[in-house]
């Protein structure tokens, strides 16, 4: 579903992404960990077609992003760190608008179902987004992905700033989507959430994928130690 072949992005004299080879299959949740500037967001921007790779290629649903950026966007949904919807529109209206411009015409019943499936409480459906918390906005974002019937979900620090309950609910939603066969790539700093939701976890540094783990095969403590080692931090005794 998501494939990158030697994907590289160089800005003037700075290498933001260095020959990244990645494969995220249907139903997988791949978490990219790394410090700020490690290349996580650059990877997502390249997969979204927002920036052009210096070399290498990225594929979404077997379509080359550089060649068919508009086509690939039909299969993907994206939730940034701060999902900014239209504050003066309601949740229903935002979902209707974003689905509509993506080419999906939804009935009111479908809109309600998607919002319910995304976990948004019913009394918030007709409220303006301006009154929503970040967690509620993320749920509308998930509803947009559900409505779009996205095959690929790209998440950029989606749980940062969420309280533990909202973060947990978000993790459950990701599981629900993976069961539907959605391939998810999530860039995050949250090791705990990554361990909780991911199928595989990659650690990035200086634009390179340094390490990769099967999430169920590694403990949270080991993951943290590996992360710190990769980042070359001094060992911390808790």
């Amino acid at each position, binding site marked *: 579903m998501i494939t990158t072949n030697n994907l590289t992005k160089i800005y003037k004299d700075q290498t933001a992404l260095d020959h990244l080879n990645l494969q995220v299959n249907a139903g997988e949740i791949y978490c990219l960990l790394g410090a700020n500037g490690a290349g996580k967001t650059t990877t997502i921007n390249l997969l979204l077609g927002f920036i052009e790779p210096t070399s290498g290629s990225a594929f979404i649903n077997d379509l080359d992003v550089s060649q068919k950026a508009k086509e690939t966007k039909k299969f993907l949904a994206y939730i940034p760190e701060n999902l900014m919807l239209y504050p003066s529109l309601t949740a229903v209206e935002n979902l209707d608008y974003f689905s509509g*411009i993506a080419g999906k015409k939804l009935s009111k019943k479908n809109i309600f179902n998607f919002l319910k499936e995304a976990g948004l409480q019913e009394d918030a459906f007709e409220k303006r987004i301006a009154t929503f918390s970040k967690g509620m906005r993320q749920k509308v974002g998930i509803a947009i992905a559900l409505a779009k019937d996205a095959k690929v979900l790209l998440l950029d620090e989606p749980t940062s700033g969420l309280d533990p309950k909202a973060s947990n609910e978000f993790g459950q939603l990701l599981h629900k989507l993976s069961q539907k066969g959605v391939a998810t790539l999530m860039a995050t700093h949250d090791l705990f959430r990554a361990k909780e939701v991911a199928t595989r976890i990659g650690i990035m540094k200086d634009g390179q994928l340094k390490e990769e783990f099967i999430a169920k095969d590694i403990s949270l403590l080991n993951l943290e130690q590996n992360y710190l080692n990769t980042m070359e931090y001094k060992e911390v005794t808790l």
Partner: protein
Amino acid sequence: MFSYNFKYELKLLLRSKWIQLLSIILLLLFGFSAYNGKEKVIKREADITAAKNEVKENDQMMLQLLDSVEKGMQVSVSRWTIPTSPMVIGNYYPRVAAMQPQAMTFIATGQSDIFTHYVKPKVTGDDFALNFTEMTSPVQLLFGSFDLSFVIVYLLPLLIIAFSYNVLSSEKESGSLRLLASQPIRVQDWVSQKLFLRFFWLSLLIILSLCLTFLIFGIEWFSVFNSFLSLVAIILAYMLFWFALAFLVNLWVGDSAKNAISLLGLWVLFVLLAPSVLNQLSTTLYPMPSRTLMINEMRELKAEVSKKQDKILDNFLRDHPEYAINDTTQTRGFYHRYMASQQLVKQELNPVLTGYENQLQKQQAWLEKLKWISPAITVQESLNKMAGASTGDYEHFRKQVVDFAETWRSFLTPFLYNNKDFTQKDYSALPQFIFQPKPKSSQFVVSGILLIVSMLLFGVGFVLSKKVKEEMMLKPF
């Protein structure tokens, strides 16, 4: 995508109170400017009516005097004001040559605050010295006239700038652009649709405000349907030009503040700077001969000819034997010599006058060619033409007045040289001035050209924006 943008753009505009605010602003601006324009038209009509009434009253007095004189009664007026003399009629009882306002005159003051709307050409007057210029309040000249054309040419672009400068940048600044750009759409298409919809709603508000303003001020827009359509077409084309500029600036410039500054810079360039520079250049390239020098020349010439008036009169009568044949008394007075010498002064001054007119025409032709540099000039000129207040309209009126002055003189001169008294019977034959408005050229052509220019700007935006990757639009400021 369009139907969703259409539906939700209206909702967003309504909820952000843009539509309500624009409706109020447009109604206030159109209402106040139309009121100002109408007041000027009413004053102009009142001035012309007053002048005509004065002529009527004078005529009544003149007919009474003629009646008394013809009945051999004594009249208690000075000898030189008894209307049996054709020169008394020509000088003391002139007709009013008036430029009546037209149905759309209220939309633009144009040249009307510089030129007068009526004159009373006298038989001894000099055509070029006819007082066509009118001194108005210096405060008004300083601040200009708050008429519909001012609202359209100067203020409407500012409203468009306020309405469109941040269509893309606000999405970028709020963060919603990344979500939008992750949808299977082209950002350029989305921006152009948003701007088109804003253009559509603003156009609708303007048309409604115009209809309402016309109704409030008692102008039946359906009775001036063609002119109304022409006015709407030119406003829409001018608006489209500014929306096209907003499109280009939105795609290329950057944050909202820079967009606003760039668009305001373009406003200064097109609305203030270009007209001023063109005006300066036209007067530098084709300077007008000094009117003071021309009047001095005329005075010198008159002083010269007054010394040899007898000779001039002899030559004049030699050239006009018809007067000598009919004149049994051969009495020659002041006016016989004056009128003959005036004819000579006119001929002598003809090259100076022609030079004056030629320079004016060259200035006009030069401005006509270069007016396309700024749509503001083009639109202002079109609105002036629609209002019948353009330089061309006043020149057209001036020529009619000069022709009428000649007709007035030609009617009374034979009375003078034939030493024939003016009688009551001759009254009905006195020439009357009938104003013929300048035939209106269609302003749809101007709208069409502006439309093409706007479309070209949009086209340039689309073509060049293909080279500007979304990367540029999405990168943080």
